[in-house]
């Protein structure tokens, strides 16, 4: 449904994303993960048709999205920095979106507002940040889009509302077979909600797979050997991370979990334990953050006295 082909987006001399490709199928919830400034918002804006890529294209429903009226009337973009007209209410914003979205349904809007406990006749700028986000979600869903793009839309929401939106999306997706792309820093939440995850690092996608595949290919093992073992001894296994604490070795692997397990067992550890990696652990492994010795930064206690 959404095809992103070799998209490059530059801002003057700075390249935000480079030659990025991915596909989002129907009835799929795609999670976009990346560190701050990785290009998640840029990518979403390109998909929404706000930005035009320097290279490549984005196709939705087989058509190029940029300046495409018909296609855009079927998608809704919820930005991280939401906007409402001055003095607007949910009702008035509903009228606004009704003018541009043929599938907009006022009844749906009111019901959703009720579900979120929002007064549609009250001024939105009187709402809290979280309530404003909820209002935006209500309006988005009221347009009955076939593609929803959510940019950090869970930020500022309480757990109950997060859960509500999660269930809403799942239900909506099941009913309408829509596609959703969500960017978020809340990896735990994404892991629960999404069926696909894309990790953006260094202007590109470094990992793009379904959650099931991810679980099936990433795993953490804790091993205890009766002898000294180095990382090189595990040459047959694709190791993402290796750490040693005395005789306890912790490593995360990529590739077929069962096969890796067999290989590890063949090394005759005293103990072998297997754990699935959380999305957060996968994220941290993939992002390769620098190891800082903060002692060097702030100085030791003796030096400062």
């Amino acid at each position, binding site marked *: 449904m959404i095809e992103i082909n070799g998209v490059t987006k530059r801002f003057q001399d700075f390249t935000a994303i480079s030659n990025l490709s991915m596909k989002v199928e129907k009835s799929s919830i795609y999670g976009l993960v990346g560190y701050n400034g990785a290009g998640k918002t840029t990518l979403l804006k390109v998909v929404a*048709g706000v930005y035009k890529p320097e290279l490549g294209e984005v196709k939705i429903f087989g058509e190029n999205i940029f300046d495409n009226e018909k296609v*855009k*009337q079927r998608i*809704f973009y919820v930005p991280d920095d939401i*906007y409402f007209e001055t003095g607007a209410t949910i009702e008035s914003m509903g009228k*606004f979106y009704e003018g*541009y979205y043929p599938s907009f349904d006022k009844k749906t809007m009111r019901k959703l507002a009720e579900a979120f406990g929002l007064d549609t006749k009250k001024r939105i700028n009187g709402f809290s940040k979280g309530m404003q986000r909820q209002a935006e979600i209500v309006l988005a869903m009221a347009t009955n889009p076939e593609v929803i793009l959510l940019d950090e839309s869970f930020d500022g929401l309480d757990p109950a509302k997060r859960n509500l939106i999660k269930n809403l999306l799942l239900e909506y997706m099941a009913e309408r077979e829509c596609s959703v792309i969500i960017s978020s820093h809340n990896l735990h939440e994404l892991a629960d909600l999404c069926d696909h995850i894309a990790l953006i690092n260094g202007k590109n996608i470094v990992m793009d797979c379904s959650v099931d595949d991810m679980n099936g290919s990433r795993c953490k093992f804790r091993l205890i050997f009766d002898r000294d073992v180095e990382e090189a001894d595990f040459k047959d296994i694709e190791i993402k991370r290796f750490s040693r604490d005395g005789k306890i070795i912790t490593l995360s692997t990529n590739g077929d979990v069962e096969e890796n397990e067999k290989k590890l067992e063949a090394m005759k550890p005293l103990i072998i334990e297997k754990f699935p990696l959380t999305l957060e652990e996968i994220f941290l492994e993939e992002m390769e953050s620098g190891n800082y010795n903060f002692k060097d930064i702030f100085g030791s206690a003796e030096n400062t006295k």
Partner: protein
Amino acid sequence: MKTKNTFAFSLAHAMKKNFIMPILTFIGLFGVLIINFSSYTREISVAKETALLTGQNFRELLRGYFFRYVLFSNYNDTLYFLTSIGVIGASALLGILLFRFVSNKKTVNVYYSLGITRTKLYCARYLAGIIMLFAAITVPFLIMALINIYYFGSSVMLWKAVLFFIIHFCVIAFASFSIAAAVSGSVGTIVEAIGFSAIIILSTSIIMVCVTDAIPFMLFGAPKNTTIALYNAGNIYQTYNNSHLSSETFLLSNTFLGRILENIDLIFLNRGNIFSGGLCIIGQVVDETTFNVWAMPPLTPYILWAIGSVAFFALGLFMFKYKKAEICGFMGRNKVLNFIISAILSFLAFCGVICMLGSEINTTSGFTFSFNMWNRALIGIVISFLVFSVIELLLTRSFKSYKRNIKFSLIHIGLMVLFVFSLHLGFFGYSSYIPDIEDIKSVNISTPSTLTGAKSAILYSSYSDFYWIENNLTDTVPGCYYTSDTGGYMLSEFKDKESIQSVIDFHQKLIDEGWVHRESDKARLDYSKRSVKVNATIVYTLKDGRQIARGYQRLPLDLYEEMFRVEDTDKWNGLVEMEFTNFLSGISVPVIFSEQMDKKTFVDENLINGLGQAIIKDIKALDYTSFWRSDADWLGCVAFFNNPENDGMVFYYDDYEDDGYEAVYQPEFSNDADYYIKTISERWQYSNGAEYTALMNDNSIVPITSEMKNTIAFLQSNGLYEALIDESEIVSARVIDAAKATASRSWNETDIIFNAFWDNGKAKAEKGYDKYGYYEERYTSGDYMPDESVTVTDKKLLKELQNNAYGMYLDTDGGYIVEFKRANGNTTIMFVPSGRISQEIK
């Protein structure tokens, strides 16, 4: 699949959210029209009352007074221009407001992700603005049309005028709106939207002012500050130089440049035609003459700007479509607009430098310097480049980006250099061009000075070089002995071949002379090196209707004097006669001044007309030299004062004790001219001076020489000849070489007409105490002669000086400035031309 008419929705939505500005425009415009209309309520009330009394229909009465409509007022044309500027400003603001959403990241996210193409979005918002502006402008005029119909009845003139103004204001509104919309939709910040829109809208006026003010400094023959007034003797204030237009240039609309500039200047669009159509189009009350020639001004400028608006719309649409959303919130990201703005401002800077350096600088130490045109151009180009660079850097805030784009600034500068060169080299024959006499239908030429006999004309003067160095009376003295050039009135058409040929010959001399630069004060000791600051303009009207205008701002003395030959023409004499006839119609108080201006005698009111007619005959019979460079004996002069009684003027006296103003003096006609004049001068101290000025400076001076047979005969036959004879003998004189006394000049150059009447013929030394006990030296008193003056007491020499002294003289060859002192203690300063006395006085 469902569809939505997103265009219609966008249009309606844009109007709903941005109606405030159009409402304000409507209120403002309607308010102005009502104010203008209400300025005629008196006439309407009078007509109604008269109609009641006479049983007539008041509408018919008003139509009988040539009322057809009241839209704008003749008496407040400043308001008309402020209205135009207000409409332009409001329209531009509306354009910015309608497209402000592209300058905000939040709104960009929403609007660019909506289910509407950029083309539709732009067009819908643009159309919303156009519709609202059209309504805001049309409705007030239609309402006023109905009001006018009620009072004056319907007429073709009314509807044409309504249509004209609707077109005028709609076009300037649409043009400003289109520019602002195009700019706002293309830049990243509101600051740029406002700033760039303002600069581009004003650029048409900027270019006009720059071209007409700066180019004359570079292009020989280009008219400068060409505010051409066709001389109308019946109304010397009939000019096109209204104060609010004084910084603008009004070119004859049929010159090539004039046509271009008048049509592109958005702020003052079609101004020339609107004002030159007589009182009709801008006014409403017309007399029969103007009524019969009433016509709607040409609509060419509006067609051009309508096309321009469409072009800006298309450009704006193009830029909006391809505008990168990511530039919102960032300044200086539209390279094209950056360049345009930088180019306009650097051109403005260039012209400003040219104008500033074009004026010669005179220091208090007497040193004069000026930049030659090449230096000026070089400095202008350097400053222009710096301004261009600074603006670019301010917009982009990136030296890297500036370096990358430096080629554009070099191209811009290169074009300017080429332009300047072409101007300095005569701009492809412009400077040397004179049309063939066979192609010329008529020619207008400006006068060198104002008309002899024109009110206040000869007396008006400015700070004199005579006192610049020696005395510091220029702060307190309103005028001194050498009058400044107040000329520049355009003499109306000469159609005969002989006159045209004379003008052509004179023009050729000007061309052959080339640039005349202001000489240093030291050089001015030699009269042959002197020049005069003038505003000499020649306008040819060709048989095909085109007009060719040329202007020259500085002439050598010989060529300047040649301009006075225009006073020998029948046309000039006819104008003098008309002027005098108007002058004499009950408002003048003639005073005869004796030879040395020691005696002043009022002329009986019964003799005023006769005296005037005698003078007219002499003026028509004699040539200009008889008045400006006479060889005949100077006998005295006649000054025609304005009688404030006839103007209904009242003098007010501020009594400090009572802390209020009261009318204490009503001028009375008195045979004692001295008393009359003295009483006024006392009051001057406590009034705002206007009344004094009105009386004392509002006069005409006509010299009386032994050649003026008719005038002399009239004086003799009416017992007034004795008024010319001073009673007190001359006992001594202080003399100074005129060359030395007039070598240094003030910043405001003086003319070469010596005129002793700036202080109403100073004859009395007045020092004393006023009624409050404050010591004063009135400006009519004091020692005006420079220290280097030589005192002469030899009787023979004194007689020679006296016999050759003049109260008015065109000083082109030098001579002596002489202060005569008489036995009664009075003094008079006069001029003795060179070569008139037998010995040299050192």
